[in-house]
């Protein structure tokens, strides 16, 4: 699975099968602080994602 974390401009590649909230827990990211999309389609926290997915994690904290 390819993951792009926008806040840190970080790209990762991991093996993962599970829900969005489980992925965030594995990455130690608080679900309250992000929204998650797959191919620019918004995902809910209960949605299942697979190791072949391209995931974007966008921070809800923006501006200044």
């Amino acid at each position: 699975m390819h993951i792009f974390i926008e806040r840190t401009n970080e790209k990762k590649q991991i093996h993962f099968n599970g829900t969005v909230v489980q992925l965030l827990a594995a990455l130690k990211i608080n679900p309250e602080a992000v929204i998650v999309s797959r191919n620019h389609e918004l995902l809910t926290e209960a949605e299942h994602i697979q190791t072949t997915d391209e995931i974007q994690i966008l921070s809800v904290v923006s501006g200044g």
Partner: protein
Amino acid sequence: MAIDRFSLIRQGEKIAVAVSGGKDSQTVLYLLNKLYGGVTAISIDEGIPSYRDATLEDMKEFCARYSIPYQIHSFEHAFGQKLETFLQRGAPACRSCGVLRRHLLNKHAQGFDKIATGHNLDDECQNVLMNLLKGTLSLASKLGPMSGVMKREGFVQRIKPLYFCSEKEITTYAFLMGFPVRFNECPHATDGFRSAVRDRLNDLEFRQSGTKLRLIENFLMILPALKTIPEGMLRSCTNCGSPSANAVCNACKTVEAFAHA
């Protein structure tokens, strides 16, 4: 919704919307334009490199898309220098930027009845907690869905239509609506204390859903009492004439201190 509950906008009022180009300001601008029409967007350009130019371009695209009148007023034009120069001369980042931005916003919103901002539930929770933890609770009297303690000549009242909307809700909305938003932070947003408060609030919200909303509902219960704390004599700045608690307003003090070598 905050607008209905607190009568933030009355029929026929002229509304200016303070916009930075971020998700909050695009969302509040879109909603107010859709609900009321006839709003005007105003941006303040601090001149922050690799950040503000980009967000202003997003804003221009947004206003063109929805046919909304748009004004941009710059630090450089108003004060003779960009924010970076103030900071190089020792001005504190967020505090001086906020003082100068609010000064310009108020100045250019003269003729409007209200200025709407994109301040949200998270912003308000952080401000309430920060004031409490810093021991500056009296400053919290300036918070709430409508700013200011009392009406003053020359001061355009500010309202927060997104008062009960969380950052996550607004981000989700902006994403689904396809707004031209960059999900990035100001490079000078290095307030460690605010970040710590934000992170703790998000932890609590994750553990106990509804924490932020309950915090604000309880704050609103005590806000009337906070607003009875005397604000001090209200006057006009002897330098620029803007509303001021002191003889010289904070914006003029900042420019005097950091705009001249």
